[in-house]
């Protein structure tokens, strides 16, 4: 099944949370990547029928999802918030999901779903005694109990320990390989890279990039990089670097150089060469903008 967003926007008063997003989420695993506050949850809530688009449309195989409870036969939703009744046991919680789905054999479906997330052993304990990772798995089991064609997960790896994270990643990959349409949101590129075949990048409410992880990696490494360099002769180094096309600009500061490298790979080869031939000693070379935020801000400026 396919979720299609067509020029979907959502605003709250003057604040635009999601701005004119058009994308199609098809079978396989799609990662929705973006920094915190980018509108990922808003977008996901619109896909899950928990938020009306202020403009544009959101459809599941052609049917609008808003105010349409029938979509939940085909959608499983794992919300970011806890959203689990603490007074129920894991078993009761998943079984209630199976019954609410109106499945012919809810007991068997609940058993299977709990097995899928490897939660059979603690299933008779109350959810309030679970760790965060266990709650997350029980939520996934409840979302999977009716074997939905579409699974939406909002920041599913948040608060999980590395082992639980690995396990859920494996689970998502397996389900995606089985032909399900899976979308999960995350603000961590490495997470998305490891699980998703396809990545949609959302920055400041806008659809900034789309592609497989290689495309997204390339986008992120081919962007202009800013380096801080301290050396034995900053002025001479600056003059030499500017002769090459890979350096877009050099600022000479009292405490060193700031070099804007427009071609990352070429610049990475150039710098040591120049230093050697000119006999300049490099004391420090550090990227000034390697954090994800600046990567995202580059993407958004590029798409603007």
């Amino acid at each position, binding site marked *: 099944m396919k979720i299609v967003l067509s020029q979907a926007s959502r605003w*709250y008063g003057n604040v635009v*949370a999601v701005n004119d997003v058009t994308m199609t989420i098809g079978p396989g695993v799609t990662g929705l990547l973006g920094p915190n*506050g980018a*509108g*990922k*949850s*808003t977008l996901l*809530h619109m896909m*899950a029928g*928990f*938020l*009306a688009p202020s403009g544009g449309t959101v459809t599941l195989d052609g049917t609008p999802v808003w*105010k349409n*409870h*029938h*979509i*939940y*036969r085909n*959608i*499983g*939703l794992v*919300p*970011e*918030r*806890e*959203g*689990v*009744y603490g*007074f*129920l046991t894991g078993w009761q*919680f998943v079984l*209630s*999901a199976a*019954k*609410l*789905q*109106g499945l012919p054999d809810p007991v068997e479906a609940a058993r299977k779903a709990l097995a899928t997330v490897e939660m059979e052993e603690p299933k008779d304990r109350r959810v309030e005694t679970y760790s965060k990772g266990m709650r997350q798995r029980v939520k996934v089991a*409840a*979302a999977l109990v009716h074997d939905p064609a579409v699974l939406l997960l909002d920041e599913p790896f948040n608060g999980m320990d590395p082992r639980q994270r690995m396990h859920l990643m494996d689970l998502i990959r397996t389900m995606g390989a089985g032909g399900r349409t899976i979308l999960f949101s995350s603000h961590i590129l490495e997470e998305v890279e490891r699980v998703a075949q396809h990545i949609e990048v959302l920055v400041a409410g806008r659809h900034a990039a789309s592609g497989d992880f290689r495309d997204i990696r390339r986008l992120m490494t081919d962007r202009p990089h800013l380096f801080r360099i301290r050396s034995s002769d900053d002025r001479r180094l600056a003059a030499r670097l500017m002769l090459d096309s890979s350096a877009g600009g050099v600022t000479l500061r009292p405490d060193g150089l700031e070099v804007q490298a427009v071609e990352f790979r070429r610049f990475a080869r150039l710098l040591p060469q120049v230093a050697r031939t000119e006999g300049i000693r490099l004391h420090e070379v550090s990227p000034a903008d390697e954090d994800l935020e600046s990567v995202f801000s580059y993407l958004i400026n590029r798409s603007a």
Partner: protein
Amino acid sequence: MNPVVAGITYRALLGRRRIVLLLLLPLGLLGLAVLLRLTGNADQRYATLLMENFALGTMLPLLGLIVGTGVIAPEIDDGTVIHLMSKPISRPVIAQTKFLVAASLLVVFAALPTYLAVWLLVRNEDGMAAGFAAGSLVAGVAYAAVFLLLGVVTRHAVTIGVVYALVWESLVGNFVPGARKFSIQQWGRTVADQISTSVYLKAEIALGFAAPALVIATVVAVVWAGLRLRAFSLTGDE
């Protein structure tokens, strides 16, 4: 009506120490009735005073508020309601189920103790026990619906509910006769008066107004709550 939704709602409301909260007021009512009986004041006048001031005037609106908002507001607050709403069940059915749970709890924790308290005092003289129990029942049903709606439309349901029950129904209602016309409590009294023939029981609102008002308030509130749930939005923190 969805049995799974009802089951979870009952457990949320009655589980753990919550049930104590619901038992406190009816036990207080029965305690007062016993006290009146022991002090030799078990007559129709005192029964009417106790019922009008405590059973219908205080206990019922408070229980209505606790139960009516309690069946949905905490779930909306902590996000657990998503578990019910992300299922192929129509949202109005969820609202109706929550309403039925609230109404049934008010029968058990308000109407039944009301009957018992009157019975302790005067048995069913002049149909008083049946009258007050019936009044408490219909008013309880209306409270359940109205406070359920309040729990769906606002996060400040309890505050607004307290203001309505205590300020509007009790305070304003005491001084401004016109305000009594729009008071669930007064409609309940009308029904009680209709069934009981006791001279002490005098309702101010005519049945011709109170009966339709009860029905309309209940139906409109439940339908409206269902419509609001249909358009339930998760705004999150973004």
